[in-house]
């Protein structure tokens, strides 16, 4: 009996642990769910070299050279001209609100200059807030365009060859000309950190009461579900405000991330986002039976948020279904908002869809939480 390792005792421990593991359904589901989730997300959804990126074409004279260039660009697989004929002003709006990743401008004298062999130019503006998105598309540009011109020219081969060799592709990396990754990551981290802490903390809100046995007393007293919910989530707005101040301060001081937008708009975005998060956490706490389960559920939500929101990998690079899932995550919308405001100086009208989405999350989560809340101990 004094041996350090007795197989009988070990067996008793193993049996007990296995039973407990099996009884905890959520943990068991997580053991299967998390590997599957990660495999599917990493395997199918994530693409670090995104293709078919939406682009707008500004070409007042849509001649055959224009078409040749457009076709050539689409053939690379990187560009997808969702707006094939827009004005310069429209194009500016499209790239500002993130509808397109590129604006290709072919000047009206392009055809004439090709014919004359007189330094034809095209301008490609890329949304470089996420440097990864633009890099692949931009790197292939020069040769593709020249070859396209050559092919198209055919008969006028000589002039065209000269023109092609003189073709200037001017690339403007907008919003983040140096392609500094921190500019993209640091504002994004604001969202990720808030998501991680807010949801985790509030997901314990009710489970803690249940576990400690104080829930019974709370329910026996005249307090309404709405009062309980608001009382539990509102204090975390203050926590979120502190976190935001720390991260934005660090962004400015340590990483020199530019901040070109309106502060009030950013604050509004953070407020809505944090509200959505604490309500999401509270919703989780109405479902979880203990704090361990709450943690796991919060983590289960955190994983896709970080992978599918466009924080780590380009949103446009994901297949349709993954983008659709991404749209269901508050972080996706917050990232768009915070990047648009901080890096692009977007105004309220530009980020209205994201503000609307965050408001919708707040509404849905509060209704869900209130309907899930058990007024009784049934």
């Amino acid at each position, binding site marked *: 009996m004094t041996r350090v390792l007795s197989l009988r005792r070990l067996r008793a421990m193993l049996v007990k642990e296995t039973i407990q593991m099996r009884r905890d359904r959520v943990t068991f589901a997580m053991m299967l769910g998390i590997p599957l989730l990660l495999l599917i997300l990493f395997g199918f959804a994530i693409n670090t070299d995104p293709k078919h990126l939406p682009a707008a074409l500004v070409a007042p004279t849509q001649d055959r050279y224009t078409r040749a260039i457009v076709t050539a660009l689409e053939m690379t697989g990187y560009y997808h001209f969702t707006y094939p004929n827009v004005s310069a002003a429209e194009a500016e709006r499209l790239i500002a609100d993130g509808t397109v990743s590129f604006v290709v401008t072919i000047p009206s004298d392009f055809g004439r200059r090709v014919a004359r062999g007189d330094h034809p130019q095209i301008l490609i503006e890329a949304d470089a807030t996420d440097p990864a998105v633009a890099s692949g598309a931009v790197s292939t540009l020069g040769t593709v365009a020249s070859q396209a011109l050559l092919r198209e020219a055919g008969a006028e081969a000589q002039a065209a060859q000269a023109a092609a060799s003189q073709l200037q592709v001017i690339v403007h990396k907008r919003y983040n000309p140096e392609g500094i990754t921190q500019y993209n990551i640091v504002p994004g981290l604001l969202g990720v950190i808030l998501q991680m802490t807010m949801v985790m903390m509030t997901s314990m809100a009710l489970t803690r009461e249940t576990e400690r046995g104080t829930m019974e007393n709370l329910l*026996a007293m005249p307090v309404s579900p709405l009062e309980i919910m608001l009382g539990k989530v509102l204090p975390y707005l203050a926590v979120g405000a502190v976190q935001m101040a720390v991260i934005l301060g660090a962004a400015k001081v340590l990483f020199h991330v530019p901040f070109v937008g309106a502060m009030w708009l950013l604050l509004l975005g953070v407020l809505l986002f944090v509200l959505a998060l604490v309500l999401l956490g509270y919703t989780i706490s109405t479902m979880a039976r203990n704090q361990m389960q709450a943690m796991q559920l919060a983590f289960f939500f955190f994983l896709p948020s970080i992978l599918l929101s466009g924080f780590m990998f380009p949103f446009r690079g994901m297949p349709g279904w993954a983008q659709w899932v991404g749209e269901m995550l508050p972080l996706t919308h917050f990232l768009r908002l915070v990047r648009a405001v901080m890096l692009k100086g977007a105004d309220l009208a530009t980020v209205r869809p994201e503000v609307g989405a965050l408001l919708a999350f707040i509404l849905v989560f509060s209704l869900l939480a209130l309907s899930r809340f058990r007024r*009784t101990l049934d």
Partner: protein
Amino acid sequence: MSAAPATPVPATPVPAPPGSGGRPAIDVKGLVKRYGERTVVDNVSMQVETGEIAGFLGPNGSGKTTTIRVMCGLLTPDAGEGQVLGHDLRRDARRIKREVGYMTQRFSFYEDLSIAENLAFVAGLYDLRPVKKYVSDTLADLGLTSRQHQLAGSLSGGWKQRLALAACIMHNPRLLLLDEPTAGVDPKARREFWDEIHRLAAGGMTVLVSTHYMDEAERCHRINYISYGKLVARGTVAEVVAGAGLTTYVVEGGVGADLIALDDRLRAAPGVEQVAPFGAVLHVVGRDAAALKASVTRIAAEAGARATPAETSLEDAFIHFMHGAKDNMA
């Protein structure tokens, strides 16, 4: 408890002792509560008169806690209806919560809050104003003013219980529901607790208290005995004991091994339902008085022991009810 309750006791005339008619504080009929296949509360009907201290007794798992929870709106019954303080059990749960004080079986205030903070929280939820006055009055009544900043979690069992009771009566409820309030509390604290309950009842508060302790049952005006979800007996202690229709003998004489042998023989004898050793004597209980008398006198004579008739205790009656109910279940 040594001090008067925190809240002013209503000035209504002290209600006549239980059974005086008038509208009962609790009047429920046919309550049923199921958890899946299991029927935890099975067709329980119960009346508690205003101003009485009603004991609620029964073995572990008999449905006492569930019944109390249904009465204070924490659980919705699967069947049955009733009124608590004149409010409908199903429709007016919120109003019931306002007027009822419910002390849970397990200490359910915040252990990481101080005594004063817990009281202030409760006062806030019941909308008692000014909160400060209610808290300081309650602290003074409890004699905890000097320890008000101590965390509730650091209190001993007896003090936790006093704190919980004080918090439950701070809003001056008309009905107090106590779920095994004295579990794990020492006899002196228990005595003081019951003195306090009687003081509250004298002030017009109706009290329903569940307990396992026979001495506590005997301090109630009336008792209700529940077993396996069914209410099997109700009335005053004397009524319940009489209603069980038991006869009891005390057998003394044998010591040690003799007592055990005697116990075995008595158990096997006709007419004997219960045999329980109390020190050097045996309590022998049975329903069939004639058969019991015959068996006891015969076996006592054979063993050289002395058998004398004794009063049937409440505990004997309850053990009898428990066996009866179990037989019904089988």
